[in-house]
């Protein structure tokens, strides 16, 4: 068995249950710590499998370019302060390079952009949320022809996945750091206060994918075929 597979199994069936058990035993507010640890356990197999593949120079640079584009994209729209095309680019990366690379692009861009905007307790959650975004796109669209890939469909996919997957994950981090009890009303309260910003994020993703999914995918595909990447 591959190292990364073993690590995945261990983390899923040993570490995560053990950590959750620990949070039951230990007194005080350990849930924040344990939830972060669980995220780390989820991230590790992805990272290990990337390490295990010993990526070629071209694949490494391609992924780095997409991460850097995702981080830099926000500055390009500096004239529109709330406009964040980052999810759109992560989704495009997932579509073009597959679920695993999509996850990596998401997680690494979240981490890298926090070096510019500040790391915090939200960092692991962002890595997970952004990564999931790329992962979903890769699972649904990479080398699959079942789903339509026109800009409108991709835009809708982006809108839905940002609104119902990415943003809720990010809000969970807020829930865990600010609440003293976790009753349904309390949790729902946090989620609803964030709904407006989440809608804006989802809208930006929709616009981004409408506008650039086609040319960007074409440009990435050109590089992939011209230089025989991903073979």
């Amino acid at each position, binding site marked *: 068995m591959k190292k990364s597979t073993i690590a995945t199994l261990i983390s899923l069936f040993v570490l995560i249950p053990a950590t959750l058990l620990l949070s039951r035993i230990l007194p005080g507010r350990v849930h924040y710590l344990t939830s972060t640890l669980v995220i780390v356990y989820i991230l590790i197999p992805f990272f290990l499998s990337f390490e295990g593949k010993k990526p070629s120079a071209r694949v490494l640079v391609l992924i780095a370019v997409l991460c850097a584009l995702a981080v830099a994209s926000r500055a390009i729209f500096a004239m529109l302060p709330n406009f964040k095309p980052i999810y759109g680019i992560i989704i495009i990366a997932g579509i073009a390079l597959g679920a695993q690379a999509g996850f990596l692009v998401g997680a690494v861009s979240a981490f890298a952009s926090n070096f510019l905007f500040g790391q915090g307790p939200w960092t692991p959650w962002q890595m997970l949320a952004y990564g999931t975004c790329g992962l979903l796109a890769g699972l649904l669209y990479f080398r699959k022809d079942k789903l339509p890939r026109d800009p409108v469909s991709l835009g809708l996919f982006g809108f839905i996945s940002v609104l119902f997957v990415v943003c809720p994950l990010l809000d969970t981090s807020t829930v865990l750091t600010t609440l003293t009890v976790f009753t349904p009303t309390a949790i729902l309260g946090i989620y609803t206060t964030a709904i407006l910003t989440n809608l804006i994020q989802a809208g930006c993703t929709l616009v981004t994918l409408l506008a650039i999914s086609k*040319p960007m995918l*074409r*440009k990435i595909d*050109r590089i992939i075929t011209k230089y025989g990447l991903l073979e």
Partner: protein
Amino acid sequence: MPHIHIQDLSFSYPNAEAPVLQNISLTIHQGEYIALCGQSGSGKTTLLRHLKSVLTPHGVRTGSIHLDDTPLENVPAITQASKIGYVMQNPQEQPVTAKVWHELSFGLENIGCDTATIRTRVAEMACYFGIADWFHKDVSTLSGGQMQLLNLASIMAMQPDILILDEPTSQLDPLAASDFLNTVRKINLELGTTVIITEHRLEDILPSADRVLVLDQGRISALDTPKAVGALLWEKNSPMFSAMPTPMQVFYRAGATGQCPLTVREGRSWLGSSIPKTPPVSYLPAPKPFDSAATALEVKDIWFRYSRDSQDILRGASLSVPAGCIHAIVGGNGAGKSTFLKAICGSCKPYRGKVAVFGTNTKAYKGNLFQNCLAMLPQDPRSLFVKDTVLEDLQEVSKDTAQVCETCQITHLLDRHPYDLSGGEQQRAALAKVLLTKPRLLLLDEPTKGMDCFFKQTFAEVLCKLKQQGVTILMVSHDVEFCAKYADFVSMFFDGQVLTTHTPASFFGGNSFYTTAANRMSRAFFQNAVTADDVVALYQKNREAAQ
């Protein structure tokens, strides 16, 4: 013992009709300095890439390459990585890491050196290349010249025996370029590293070269010492002759015989020995001065700085450009030339002074300044490419592309991807895109950067055609030879100001450093001879007068 031995090497790309390389046989000895030249598409880069297995392109190859008597493909990758260094053209794109120290250590990390070894090697390189001062800097803060030096240093840290350089200075300004080439020369002389280099600026490398290899359509058309190659190219009437250094061109075109000069110094002593010290004809009749009633551009006393507490970049720059001429601005690095162009087209907002285009203040144009009026060709043509074919890109501006394409000589390139074009073609495609806005005043920022002499020629033809159509051209350039040949006026930019404006003949004739090679070799004898043609003409007149 031969160091590199190439035997009967032929290569063709998959699905290509003609082979790129044909029957190349070549032996290179340890410590040789080989200059490789040839027109764009002659196979220079392909040949260089064959000397390093990881960079060799895919395709059909016959023949063999031996490194120290071992077939290259049997030399382990790790040995090739450290023994054969390869510097590429674009300084910006070669660095991999974010810090200077990390870039220097990158190759050593790859071949598995331990930290102690890397520490000493990196320190050594930082001292040898004089980069200790910026050792802890971010790579992104370096200038192009510094970055290319870093690329070289990070390769030298691996202690290569062979250094391959593929047009390493084409993106650098002349000062940084000669700095870089001097360093390469120093490495060759002091460390005995074999150097194989391709370069547009032949006048800078031929004096250092032991042998020159000329490629023509994938075949070796000459391989000898620089002077012998010059003689051979002249004899064969080869187009490559026009890429040779000015003194050599003047020598042969003037009909002289014997040992040809290679450098300005040799050219000057040859002139001195063949014509009298005070020649009977010392100047050419001045060409008819350009005169135009209208003014295309009037810049008055503009001041600009990037932020409130930074220094002024433009310090009261003023300039007047008559309509219909080609006006060149030359000057050192960081004098503010490019900023001056940006200020004219409004990307930089001067805090004082005014800019008027065709008699109207640019502020009064509102949104119409860039329609049928003013346009600028950026320094890097790639800034303008958005789409996947040249045609689509042009159509982003206007559907009516036919005439402009013909002017720019890119009609045969329309279906190609902009990034598959060579540098000179990219420049013309970008120019076409700019011209589709139908500008009457065209600004060019370093238009000949990275072009070989053939592309320059074509580009000059395009510019002259535009001039005939009545377009006013203002260009900023480091390329004094190009300005001397094609501009109607030349201005010197220094310290944020336009200092002097003259015709090329009196401008370059009056300067002693900032001038053309032809002027430097002939200034002791002739007045205002600034191009090779001028010197040839004067030389011949004096010879006739003497007989």
